[in-house]
């Protein structure tokens, strides 16, 4: 089987998913009532007038986790072809390669841990 024959169902399903989500919204648009109150289209903020917009800068404390994640995610993806080629019994060379790869990844985790990435300090301290 070639690649296109394998993947066209994926494409068909993706297109149908788009149609399947747009259709009910269109039906709803056609039959639902429309009101025009003074505050109908105001952003929700627990019943008070919205205080400024939401598109502001704010501190995302977990950005270092995000940096480690990128390294980890890519490296774990490398393991998928390894997993399919991994043979059972004999040939211990494969096992040592896997071991070295995972130990290096683990070292990155130990380094981040030692650096105190996983400790959350209170702001007021």
């Amino acid at each position, binding site marked *: 089987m070639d690649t296109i024959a394998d993947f066209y169902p994926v494409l068909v399903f993706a297109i149908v998913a788009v149609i399947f989500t747009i259709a009910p919204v269109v039906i709803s648009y056609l039959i639902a009532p429309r009101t025009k109150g003074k505050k109908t*289209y105001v*952003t929700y903020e627990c019943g008070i007038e919205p205080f400024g917009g939401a598109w502001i800068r704010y501190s995302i404390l977990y950005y270092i986790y*995000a940096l480690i994640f990128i390294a980890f995610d890519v490296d*774990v993806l490398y393991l*998928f072809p390894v997993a399919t080629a991994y043979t059972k019994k004999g040939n211990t060379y*494969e096992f040592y390669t*896997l071991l070295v790869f*995972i130990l290096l990844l683990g070292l990155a985790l130990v380094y981040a*841990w030692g650096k105190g990435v*996983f400790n959350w300090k209170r702001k007021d301290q």
Partner: protein
Amino acid sequence: MTDVLKIAVEAIGQDTLRVILGLIGVLILVVINALMLTWAERKVAGHMQRRIAAKEVGPFGLIQPIADSLKLLGKELITPMKVDRVLYFLAPVICFIPVLVSFVVIPFGEGLQVRDINVGILVILAFSSLSVLSIFIAGWGSNNKYSLIGAARSVAQNIAYEVPLLLSLLIVVIMVGSLSLKDIVEAQKGMWFILYQPIAFLIYFIAGVAETNRTPFDLPEAESELVAGFHTEYSGMRFAIFFLAEYTNIMIISAVATTFFLGGYLGPYLPGIVWFLIKTYFLVFVILWFRWTFPRVRFDQLLNFSWKILIPVSFINLIVTGGILKL
């Protein structure tokens, strides 16, 4: 009936017919699954709190979800003034693509699979990464503070729990040596993988619950602190689509767990699809059960639990499995 099938096969070819029939079946399954799960969620919640839950509409309240969805269809579509219109309309559309595509490769029974792609699990994993994108688009596009905080939390959760999820599935792949879901089920003929790999199953299930934003990892939509999280500004049918995607996601997580660890459609006496649905919906019930058992975790606990416990344990598990395979 068989004559009709034969004529159809001759007219458009077996593969195309399989895709069309699969698509119809999957769409019906998705809708019924979402309707039943909204009902089941309320019933499970009710009985765990010694209430009766929905009972007025139809026997045991079974017609209630249909009444609810018709009501949502007739609700006004409100698009707040300040939203980013393109992103706001796009988010529900994107959130449904990964959900539907995952069904292409899931084997419901022997031969009951739309197409057995040889990198099956990679298709599911690659597309499921899109769902966090849709949540972030929804949160950012809404221009609402609650939505934005919910979306930022959702991204954090995704980056914490995707690695253990990948690693726990990888352990099964390394045992089977194939990424095709059908091969993985067939490899469990003798023994289910949950008996070889109970830790991997546990890690996968925890990470899966986190990926679907269910309690105890429901920080992106924590109703008691963020109103409704990333879908605060969505109402009517758009809200319904988010819910459809969420409930289908719960089913997919359970279906993949069934395929990888619980022997998929294998089982004695009953036909394969019945076994598959029994196992899948048992896991779905466990996820619904979680919601009334565990309190919500705190944000730093959420991140550190994954990085300090799940990922190191997964690594050790992978090395041990690799070593045992070579013995």
